[in-house]
C-alpha cells in the first residue's frame, strides 16, 4: 500500500486503520479529525509529529500527488 492509498483509507475509515495500533475508544466517531485530536490529547502522537505530517501532506497536494 502506498502513501496515497494509506491516506485515502485513513480518510474513509480511520478507526479500522488505527484502532489496532492506538488506543481509541470504540464509541468515538469514525472521523479523522476527531481521532487525530484524541491521539494528540492523549499524548499518543505529538504536536510536532502532527505538524510534520501536515506539512508533508500539503507538499504532496502541491505536487499534485493527492
Amino acid at each position, binding site marked *: 500500500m502506498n502513501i496515497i492509498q494509506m491516506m485515502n483509507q485513513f480518510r474513509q475509515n480511520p478507526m479500522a486503520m488505527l484502532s489496532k495500533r492506538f488506543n481509541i475508544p470504540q464509541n468515538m466517531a469514525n472521523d479523522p*479529525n476527531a481521532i*487525530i*485530536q484524541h491521539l*494528540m*490529547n492523549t*499524548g499518543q502522537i*505529538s*504536536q*510536532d509529529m*502532527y*505538524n510534520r505530517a*501536515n*506539512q508533508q501532506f500539503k507538499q504532496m497536494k502541491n505536487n499534485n500527488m493527492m
Partner: protein
Amino acid sequence: MYENYPNPYPYVNPYSGMTRLQAPVMPQNNTFVPVSNINEAKNYMVAYGNSVTFKDENAPYIYTKTAISQMDAPIFKKYRLVEETSDLPVNAPKEEMTMDLSVYVTKDEFGALQKELQALKQALGEGDKA
C-alpha cells in the same frame, strides 16, 4: 616474506564496544507553521497544553493558537506584521521637544523693564495717577 609470522600488534578497534551516540531529537515546537489563510490556522488541530504559531503566506499576519484544556476553548490570536524602519526600539522614550528660549525674556529682564517703565511714568507725572 613475513606471512608466516603472527602479527604482534593486531588491530583493535577502540570503538568496537561502544554504541554509537545519537543526537537527541528535539521537538520543533518553535517553528512557524505556514498557512494559506486565517481559516486554515483556526481549523488547525492543537493538542491540549500546546501552542502553535502560524505564518500567513498570503497576508502579513502571524497567528497563534493555544489549547489549554478540554474545558476551555482554544485561544486564537492574530498579529499584524509591520515593517520597522527605525533602529530604535518600539518602546524607546521619545526625545523631548527642544524649545528655543532665545525669543523669551527672563523674569529679571522683565522686572527691570517694568521698573524702567514705572520710572518713565513717574517722570511724566502719570505715576501718581496710577
